[in-house]
């Protein structure tokens, strides 16, 4: 076993996830929110890889899931940014508080 215990990785991932969540929930800029979400996805990947190394070493599943998660994250970022750019073009803002067409 490596000299770094599993819990260290998990704590780093937990902290990164919390910071990302803070960024995603507190930012006004839609791009800033997206960046926070990317951080959260990264935290999840740290967990997946750490569990692969410490729990299921001989298998592929942990890293495989991480790769799929990266793929989905990239697709999500591409479409989300396209949406943000479309909104910017029509409404001239990327401030989520002003994008409230669907609010009741």
């Amino acid at each position, binding site marked *: *076993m*490596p*000299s*770094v215990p599993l*819990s*260290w*990785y998990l*704590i*780093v991932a*937990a*902290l990164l*996830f*919390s*910071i*990302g*969540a803070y*960024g995603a*929930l*507190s930012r*006004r*800029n839609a*791009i800033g929110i997206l*960046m926070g979400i*990317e*951080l959260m996805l*990264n935290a999840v*990947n*740290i967990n997946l*890889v*750490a569990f*692969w*190394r*410490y*729990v*299921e*070493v*001989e*298998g*592929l599943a942990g*890293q*495989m899931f991480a*790769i799929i998660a*990266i*793929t989905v*994250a*990239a697709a*999500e*970022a*591409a*479409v989300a*940014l*396209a*949406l*943000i*750019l*479309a909104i*910017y073009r029509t409404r001239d803002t*990327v*401030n989520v*508080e002003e994008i409230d067409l669907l609010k009741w």
Partner: protein
Amino acid sequence: MTAEQFVFVVAALITLGSAVGMVTSRSVFVGALWMIAVFGGVAALFILVGAGFLGIVQILIYIGAIAVLILFAIMLTPRVMGDPNAPRYNRQWPLVAVMTTGLAAVLTVLVLRTDWPLAQEGTPVITGFAVELGKGFMTTYILPFEVASVLLLVALIGAIVIAREE
């Protein structure tokens, strides 16, 4: 403290410090630069834990592709970027700060108190992960492999349709 632990602490500090820098930076562009540092730190963590292939992929996809995409999107929304006085947070940010701090505390306690079912000492670690991954894609994980290409196709078409001005 072993060399491995030292590298871990450095990488973790870079990751978390840059993450804090990202969420507190006033300018979105600077925030994106911090985010790139976070990605680099996470890549270092991946390599340290033994997933070298994934570490390289992290640099390739996150720094080389997603970060550049985000930077481009920031460049394409100049009226937002050019305004230095725009408030960075929304009204609910103090509440969010309390909540996420609580979340971090709860998760940390949970991690420390759980008895993780660790693998047996001396279990062989797979080597040559890229080859194993390739084999895996062609056998067990063939569905994710093909679905990924469909997912990317959909993302490509969707994003082009949404982003292009007619």
